[in-house]
């Protein structure tokens, strides 16, 4: 394989990286004198064009290759995830155009794109070295994005927490992965599984499993590795928080599932009721159960909407882990459907929070009082997002839950092994309706506070949020739009 071919395979990543450099250069050389908003619009347009070009490249030139033994795997499924990631990136960029927290426009947009590049490489990696490098590229960009609001001390605090926890988690991941290498003598996930196969559960392998789960558990914000999430979601500039909650989630869950399903194939064990067998499934089952319980219960008492979304994100991570547990093709499809629609919904929710916070100054529940009378469009969007997160049909969140739960129950069939966890998940999502309704209660039921100033949401935000809400409704009403494509991609993979 020569470098030209490699460049072709990595073209989407390259395009996005080049777009990042262009944004940086243009902003640095020609736009210093301009108004921040104009700079955001021009920079955002360049970034958007880069993402769209990368998407078009992938759609127009479908490729299938495996370069350097899993360093860069290009197949329909990875392309699908990358397209989804780029779509989420575009929405993040659109969201940041209205923001006014920084004057370093070029740097901010470039970092978003670099994070996206990291996620794209992450998705394509089947080699633990490459996985780690891509993970670090993503994480380092996200740390900086979190700290970007220099005027807000909470932003710095959040970033420091995120960074310290993240560094620790990276160390755990590295430790786990190096143990894997030591056990198997290979860095490719498939080869690792082949080398480990039949050896049973080595104590070292158990350590490797636990370490890896800790590392990825941090990335997806699952209990008990979730402590950074509420602070990061609350303190980070809104577009950064939205990106951490959506793009980063999708990529991390995809690679998490991949590492577990391919790398630890044969060491699954069983988490079925009364049929416990040690392996990675019971470990993740415990993490998933804890995430659902803690996330949902703690979200109830939050008064900051961002923290509420953060704890609900922890709960959603618990639901998504169910799909990882199910570890079959159907489960991967359900995981991706869930993660992508969840990403869209969360970006939307953060978008509404951003609009309100920019005008009212904070994100307390009480600040949202009477929003429906002041800005009906974004209120309606928020209703769609919250109800989708709560899992009300016909919105995407409901079908995602149904799909994931059905996949999880199916793996345990005919004795419905993982049913206990699914019952817990459904019970907990019944709890979650309460706090989502708390937000909607403020927006729709509470009266507009006396003397509240006139409130106009920017047209751009209204359009972007409207698009996202329409997407959530459409994907929920016609889930086959996504599910059909996903299943094609997975069957083309032939694993």
């Amino acid at each position, binding site marked *: 394989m020569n470098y030209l071919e490699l460049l072709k395979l990595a073209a989407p990543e390259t395009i996005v990286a080049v777009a990042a450099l262009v944004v940086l250069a243009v902003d640095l050389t020609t736009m210093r004198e301009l108004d921040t908003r104009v700079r955001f619009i021009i920079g955002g347009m360049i970034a958007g064009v880069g993402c769209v070009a990368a998407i078009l490249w992938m759609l127009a030139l479908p490729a299938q290759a495996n370069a350097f033994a899993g360093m860069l795997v290009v197949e329909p499924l990875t392309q699908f995830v990358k397209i989804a990631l780029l779509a989420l990136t575009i929405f993040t960029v659109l969201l940041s155009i209205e923001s006014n927290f920084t004057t370093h426009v070029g740097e901010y947009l470039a970092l978003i794109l670099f994070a996206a590049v990291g996620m794209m490489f992450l998705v394509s990696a089947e080699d633990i070295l490459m996985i780690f490098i891509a993970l670090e590229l993503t994480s380092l960009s996200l740390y900086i994005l979190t700290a970007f609001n220099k005027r807000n001390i909470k932003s710095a605090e959040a970033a420091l927490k995120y960074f310290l926890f993240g560094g620790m988690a990276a160390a755990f991941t590295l430790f786990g992965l190096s143990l894997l290498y030591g056990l198997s003598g290979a860095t490719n996930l498939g080869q690792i599984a082949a080398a480990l196969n039949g050896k049973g559960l080595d104590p070292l392998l158990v350590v490797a499993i636990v370490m890896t789960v800790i590392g990825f558990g941090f990335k997806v914000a699952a209990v008990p590795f979730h402590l950074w999430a509420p602070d990061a979601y609350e303190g980070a500039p809104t577009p950064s928080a939205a990106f951490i909650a959506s793009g980063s989630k999708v990529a991390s869950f995809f690679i998490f599932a991949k590492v577990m399903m391919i790398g630890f194939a044969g060491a699954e064990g069983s988490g079925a009721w009364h049929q416990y067998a040690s392996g990675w499934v019971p470990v993740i089952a415990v993490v998933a159960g804890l995430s659902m319980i803690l996330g949902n219960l703690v979200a109830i008492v939050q008064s900051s909407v961002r923290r509420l979304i953060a704890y609900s994100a922890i709960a959603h991570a618990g639901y998504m882990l169910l799909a990882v547990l199910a570890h079959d093709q159907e489960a991967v499809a359900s995981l991706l459907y869930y993660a992508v629609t969840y990403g869209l919904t969360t970006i939307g929710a953060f978008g509404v929070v951003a609009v309100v916070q920019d005008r009212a100054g904070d994100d307390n529940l009480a600040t949202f009082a009477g929003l429906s009378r002041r800005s009906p469009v974004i209120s309606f969007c928020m209703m769609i997002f919250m*109800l989708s997160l709560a899992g009300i049909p016909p919105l995407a969140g409901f079908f995602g839950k149904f799909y994931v739960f059905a996949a999880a129950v199916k793996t345990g069939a005919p004795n419905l092994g993982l049913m206990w966890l699914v019952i817990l998940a459904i019970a907990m999502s019944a709890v979650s309706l309460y706090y989502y309704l708390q937000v909607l209660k403020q927006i729709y039921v509470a009266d507009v506070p006396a003397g509240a100033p006139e409130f106009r949401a920017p047209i751009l935000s209204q359009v972007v949020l409207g698009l996202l809400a329409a997407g959530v409704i459409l994907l929920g009403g016609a889930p086959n739009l996504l599910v059909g494509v996903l299943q094609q991609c997975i069957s083309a993979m032939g694993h």
Partner: protein
Amino acid sequence: MLAWTIYISFLGVLVLMLLPKGNASAARKAAMLTAVAGLFIALLGFVRFQPGETVTVTDAEWIPSLGIRYHLAADGISLTLVLLTGLAAVTGILFSWNIEHRAKEFFAFYLALIGGVYGVFLSFDAFLLFVFYEIAIIPKYFIIAIWGSTRREYGAMKLALYSFVGSAMVLIGLIAAYVVAGAHTMSIGELAKYPFPHGFQLWAFPLVFVGFAILAGLWPFHTWAPTGHVAAPTAASMLLAGVVMKLGAYGSLRVAMTLFPEGLDDWGFGVMGFHSWRDVIALLAVTGIVYGAMVALVQKDFKFVIGYSSVSHMGFVLLGLVTLNTIGLSGAVLQMFSHGVIAGLLFAVVGRMVYDRTHTRELSVLEGMQLSKAIPFAATTFVIAGMASMGLPGFSGFVAELQVLIGAWKAYPTLAVITGVGIVIGVAYTLRAVQKVFFGERGGTSSTSSHSSGNEDGDAVEHVPPISVPERIGAVLLIGASLLIGLYPRLLLDVIVPSFSSPLFDGLRKVGLQ
């Protein structure tokens, strides 16, 4: 054709959302038009219907990879309830003609709820049914929380959470059934044919049945009903009691009983005299009938009387379901229709005719107002509605409850006798309410002047606005429907009874449906 009942309701929602702000009159006219169109389509479907058949309305692939279909169909049972929904929708709007506050949103939520209800009654795919079932939860919350009265936010949240917990139970059962049956279909017809393992049915049946029955006011999970009804604005109470509670009973019949018929079978052992879930549910239903009636007898708030009476009357529906004979089952369906009409009428009198004029619902305060002179139309309506509610011959309640009682007599003679006691108490609380509200002595017990919201002096009574035309039309419609079914019950029974011989109920026949 019938599918348009659903689509037109949601189209109405869209139209209302696009209407300019603050034009209440246009909003209610648009809503009225939508509801009337829905009723008209339902009537047309009813007239064209051949008893015994199951009309497939739409059957298309929806999510092919999971085997989920967009399957709308109607048999006699669903048609009866679709008709009820149409009637309740129209009369509900007639009785909310005076809504001015955020009228556009009110009617949008209202029509969304109606659309969801139509959808549930017409779905023959369990997944689709569940989707519509949940669509109906959210509008209820907003209607009560925004336009309600006493403790509205509490009542709304309680209702939403009870409904959601119930639907969570249903979802668990449905996912399990879907997977056990091979994960390739959600069609109720297909699943009903699938021989689920006996042990599985024994736990899935109570889960799904009770999950649905929570919304039907099954004792002891009924507590959302009185608070919800009382908190709700008139139209919402009418819909809650009129059709939403029927959603629960319908789900229990359509999903739980057809999918898991063996769940009604004997356990093979006895615990404290219970030998099957059927026994347990029958006892809970009768407890609901008697308990609801007794609690209604001692209420101080007029609306609570009606709220608890709903729990009592819905007990008949649940009892009818577990009698497992055609007469009891068709009685249950007829009772759903009958109670839908009568409860709607009662809530209209309480909420719209009395409370909106007097701003109090305290029986002791109303007693001193001599409302029968101030608003004679309301008094007449309530007396008629009360007679229908008591189950006087000539009204729909009589036929329906009689059928349930006959059915229950065959299956559970002792419980049938206790139910009879419940009916007597029903007469007592209705007469008590009639007497206190409309024919109280001036200055009776109104000396209890601790009611902050009341206007105890009775002076304002003379200035009560007269009953408006929409109210009169609504009342006449509902009374007419109850009388029509009471005098000529075959109109509905001829449609309902043959439905129970469809293959859908083969499983029930195996466990003893006669």
